[in-house]
């Protein structure tokens, strides 16, 4: 059974990616990535 855990996990992961992408999460992550959070890198107070 152990040898199939990675397969099950991979399928679950791909399904999660598909649902996430279907809800526009790529664009959300991209927007976060393109916004410089200065306080996150110690710049600011």
């Amino acid at each position, binding site marked *: 059974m152990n*040898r199939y855990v990675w397969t099950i996990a991979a399928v679950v992961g791909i399904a999660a990616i598909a*649902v996430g992408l279907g809800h526009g999460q790529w664009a959300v992550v991209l927007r976060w990535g393109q916004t*410089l959070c200065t306080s996150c*890198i110690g710049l600011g107070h």
Partner: protein
Amino acid sequence: MAAGGGEKRASESAALTGSRWLYRRNWVQIAAMLVMNSYFFAWAKGFCVPALNCWACPGAIFGCPLGAMQNSSISARWTIGDKPWYAIVPLYVIGVLIVFSAVFGRMMCGWICPFGWLQDKLAALRSKHWRIPKPLRYLRYAILVALVLVIPYLTGVAWFCKLCPQGALEGGWLQPIFNPETRVLIGSFWWIKQAILVGFLVLMVFVKRPFCGTVCPLGAIFSLLHRHSLWRIDFEADKCVNCMWCVQECPAGIDPRTEVNSHDCIGCLECTKCPHDAIQSRLMWAPAPAEAQVTEG
């Protein structure tokens, strides 16, 4: 350990088993670091790279999965109740991490993580290192839950990012260098963050991979599936002569004789260069050596 002799034997052994590519891990790590920070195309920041690489670095081309998960927790403060759970939970980011860890386990830590590479290089300055106490190795799971998920949700602040030494190095230094207008923002918090970075840099000389072993929440996520991942490492006790070569060489500072495939193993495969062929890697579906004992750590 007679390093020269051991390395020569390891080299001959690896050449015989066709694993010369293992000797290129350092170059794979450098190439991965350069690609992640090459600024070819900014649109790729929607893809979360499975390694600790600050997306506030001026050259970063990919997104940081930990940053994305913290932002998701913060967003959930305002959207919970208004949206269905599958629109609030960062399924896309979690899915990417699950797929990579299902296939590779923690190999991303050993092969492509820029911060891991830095730790390897600093550890190489000394031949003897302190070991991380075993209970401390579970701290990263608490940090994952507390600083990446719960506290950002409760406070609305990305607290892991605020304390992350990789962010202090890539974002904290390179943004003020390449974007002079950000220099006026350097204040007391920048110095606190740099102090954390310096603390880890010093520790990296005395302890192998202290950040990976105790703090990294990304390593904690990959650890969960490492022992069930597609890549396996087998230890054959019959071939082992207890020369301690693998213990000396392991970049994660663990004992490969008992801890390969454990949650502390970073999947670098350095131990598979064993001069006595006592440790070998294979894909999950390949048959294990007859004498191999699967160590679960």
